[in-house]
């Protein structure tokens, strides 16, 4: 198994774990959408290996781990992935601020779909709806730099 592939598996596994890590109640609203962060990175910077099928598989794993209805997370995750696949070429050359903005927009779509399908009351007035967008967007530059450096190292070691 080459280093790039190993890094991909490790980062997605870690993202899955972070998504279900128990947090105190006040912190739940701030939980960044780790899986989306990692998926976006791999789609944009290693498009040949992270397609929509892998994203679907990640969503199913997340359903199983969180006890959600099978198919709930894949729907929202795939829609976000599809948008980013379409934006892929231009997203790479966006300034970092604009990238963050796109990420926040993706999280909004993600949450809106999940809650539209499975929530039973209006949730736009709920803080967790907005906080998760904010934390995910703010984490993007760090996640991006970290993953890029790790990937460079792994690619260099493969040569």
């Amino acid at each position, binding site marked *: 198994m080459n280093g790039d592939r190993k890094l991909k598996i490790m980062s997605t596994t870690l993202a899955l774990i972070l998504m*279900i890590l*128990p947090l105190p109640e006040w912190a739940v609203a701030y939980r960044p959408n780790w899986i989306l962060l990692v998926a976006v990175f791999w789609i944009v910077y290693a498009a040949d290996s992270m397609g*929509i099928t892998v994203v679907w598989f990640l969503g199913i794993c997340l359903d199983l781990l969180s006890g959600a209805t*099978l198919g709930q997370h*894949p729907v929202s995750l795939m829609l976000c992935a599809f948008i980013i696949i379409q934006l892929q070429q231009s997203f790479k050359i966006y300034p970092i601020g604009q990238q963050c903005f796109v990420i926040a927009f993706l999280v909004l779509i993600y949450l809106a779909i999940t809650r539209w399908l*499975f929530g039973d009351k209006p949730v736009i007035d709920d803080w967790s709806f907005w906080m998760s967008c904010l934390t995910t967007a703010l984490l993007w530059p760090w996640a991006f730099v970290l993953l890029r450096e790790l990937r460079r190292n792994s690619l260099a070691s493969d040569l």
Partner: protein
Amino acid sequence: MKKSLFLPGQGEATRFAALMVISFILMFMDLRLPFMATVRGYLATAVYPLQRAVDFPGRLISDTSSSYQSRGKLQSENQNLYTENQQLRRQLLKYEALVAENSRLLQLLQSSPQADRDIVVGRLLGIDMTPYQQKVTIDRGSRNGIKVGTPFGDGNGMMGQVTRVYYYHSEGLLLSDPTHATPVRVLRNGIRSVAIGTGYTDKLNLLYLPANSDVVVGDMLVTSGLGQRFPADYPVAKVTAVDQSGEEIFATVNAMPLANLDKSTEVLLFVETESKRNPETEIAPTEIVDPATMAPENATVTSTVEISQSVNPENGVSE
């Protein structure tokens, strides 16, 4: 060929549409078809290692911190535990006598004693607390005797019930989930109600309490045992607010769960012991029979017909 499966390109949109449809069909199947529970059971067991991995850092921290503690702290903790143990033992002395008395009285009433429950201690592996659902994952599953509906709690009170069981782990719904209703009664005077979750861990709503009912702030709510899910008389919540302004037919009553729904990491699962459960006697209504007319157990059939018909119709039909 295999590599092309993951290549972006003209096939991406088709693949996206196909997987989207598959996801929607999966959702439908998961919600509607009962056999999906088995499929799900196998799949969930496959990803169980990840669930354990979540628990690992917390366990590591608690293990290391417990093996590196100062002598003084351990001594004072030991002292505290000793005094607590003494107190609990004193209470237990009375408890044994009360249990014996209770079962004797229940026998006099020809009512079956409550099924005994074993307590299994589990750890929470995951918590999913959004306002629209409050779920936990527990590291005990069907191999530990957990079943769907097994209630769980912490040292202070009830926390919820198990909704899905896998081989190694299970999923539980907390009392505070908006879809969860707990049959309760007020300990002070026995008024029955249903405590429904609000989506917030510190608040339950009591339904169907008439505006003039005798409920005050501070009242203790215990499980009523109705509905056959929760064992009777376990503490659930404390009443925090009562609004009986009289404009509505029912009073608005809020209560706070006694269990630390958002802080507990260890839970007690009340597993029913197989041998003592007898569905016939459990469903039978508790009739109050005058002890004078009550026949001893080895009496002839003719003298017990009247009683056994009221208590247990299965055996009573002799004519």
